[in-house]
């Protein structure tokens, strides 16, 4: 499959948008007409129509090159977005191997990986990279292994160490996040880094999720979908840069809702790593404009109902307060009250 990569921006003039084909593969996060937190994990196996975001387990799309350029800009401004504690080197190599193997297998037109013992040869054609290196020897790469490969992979990546019956956020590359800080959270355990999330602790969601993940098996990755909303197609909605993007929330008007307001979906996948026994936590961000979303009638009806009936705590936590009423009003034009089919895929 040969992907045609878009030339576009996720900042300043915000030229990023989805082609009609890319809209159809958007991982829509609502399987019913309402939303509440749950341990919504399922096996990370191929699913959905041909070409859907669940076809390859490390997904790549038309935004790849532009997203990698945006990541490089973020890192230039703020190197602390990529950090790894010293004991995570083996898990870094695990991560490099997993991402190279899946990208090469899923997109052979764009990537190739050749191994001869510990002598590896990696070719990334979209980014014009041809790298020979020694697996296990960080001095043969221009960056540490996690940074090297995650500068070439869509999505944020956290490597979570497992010890004392807990999971610890001990490494990460985080430049497309929904308002959380790797620099602040690195070294925290599962309960601590989820500390600010409302309601879910009381529902027992994190206790159950932790128990589940501690038993995650190699070769059996799992996934879940999470979501929020973002004004403009901006990938870097970090707390660090909140003074730069917070004001966007006041720029929404009834006329520009369709273009400005985006549903932001995170396809989160979790992988047990073979050597380190750590877990790779992939948080892949997809943005879709309201005017793109409503081209799928089922999604238009459903998202209208979800957003209209969202619990107030979630409205506040997800930062939707200022533009939700206008967006619900705009979406209501696309909801004729007809029933929707269950599941996330378009009809």
């Amino acid at each position, binding site marked *: 499959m040969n992907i045609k990569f878009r030339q576009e921006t996720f900042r300043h003039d915000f030229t990023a948008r989805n082609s009609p084909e890319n809209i159809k593969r958007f991982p829509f996060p609502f399987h019913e007409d309402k939303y509440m937190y749950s341990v919504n994990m399922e096996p990370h196996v191929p699913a959905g129509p041909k070409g859907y975001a669940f076809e390859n387990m490390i997904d790549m799309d038309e935004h790849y090159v532009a997203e990698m350029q945006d990541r490089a800009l973020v890192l230039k401004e703020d190197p602390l977005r990529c950090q790894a504690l010293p004991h995570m080197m083996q898990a870094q190599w695990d991560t490099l191997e997993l991402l190279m193997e899946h990208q090469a297998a899923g997109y052979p037109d764009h990537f190739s990986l050749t191994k001869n013992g510990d002598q590896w040869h990696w070719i990334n054609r979209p980014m014009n990279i041809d790298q020979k290196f020694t697996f296990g020897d960080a001095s043969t790469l221009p960056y540490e292994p996690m940074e090297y490969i995650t500068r070439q992979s869509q999505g944020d990546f956290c490597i979570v160490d497992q010890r004392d019956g807990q999971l610890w956020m001990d490494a990460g590359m985080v430049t497309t996040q929904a308002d959380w800080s790797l620099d*602040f959270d690195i070294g925290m355990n599962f309960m601590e880094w989820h500390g600010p999330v409302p309601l879910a*602790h009381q529902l027992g969601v994190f206790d159950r999720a932790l128990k589940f993940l501690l038993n995650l098996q190699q070769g059996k990755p799992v996934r879940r979908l999470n979501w929020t909303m973002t004004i403009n197609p901006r990938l870097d909605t970090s707390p660090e840069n909140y*003074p730069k993007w917070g004001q966007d929330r006041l720029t929404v008007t009834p006329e520009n809702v369709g273009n400005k307001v985006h549903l932001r979906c995170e396809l989160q996948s979790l992988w047990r790593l073979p050597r380190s026994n750590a877990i790779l936590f992939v948080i892949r961000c997809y943005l879709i404009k309201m005017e793109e979303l409503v081209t799928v009638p089922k999604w238009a009806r459903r998202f209208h109902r979800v957003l209209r009936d969202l619990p107030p705590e979630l409205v506040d936590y997800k930062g939707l307060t200022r533009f939700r009423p206008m967006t619900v009003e705009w979406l209501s034009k696309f909801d004729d009250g007809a029933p929707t089919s269950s599941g996330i895929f378009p009809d």
Partner: protein
Amino acid sequence: MLVKGIKSRPVYTGLGIDTNAKRHIFAIEGEGVDALLDQVRAVGDDFLVHSEFLCVGPVAQLQALKPDDLWSAPTIPILLYRLRAMLQNAKMGLRLYVSGTEGFIGQVMQVAIECGIDFNSIRTEHRGSEARRVQCVHCKGITDDVKTQPVICTHCGLSLLVRDHYSRRIAAFQGVCIDAEEPGTAPAPELMFP
């Protein structure tokens, strides 16, 4: 909005003397001395001959306890410098106790963790002011002794909402710009952490 009950917020469960320890190291700041006196009243003074006090603040009550060693630092950074040197040569059987303000406890724990002590094993008790140590998530600067909500970052000048979200690694609560969406609308600081 300050969300209460965030799980990363530290809990200080009290000094609780470990009678099995071979060596007791106490880091005490100001009113933290009262937590130690409470322990002496509760379990007796046998542990004092194996104890070493590092303190900031009034020293008379600590001297009266006649520990094996007592060292008084003029400021917290000096105490931390000495503590780090001690812990780098520490042996098995050492137990670390910390009492004082949250900012002090956090900084002592930060040094101890960096020296390889499991944070769960450190006995802590909060005494004195509720003032907080806050990191600005934007410029990364740390402001000590924060008593108000919001607080002006002493480094970049932004008005920060002090959250309950806490990092042991940084030994600080998180501060996030309170008027990022509408600059200039920050409320006046009010005493929140006296």
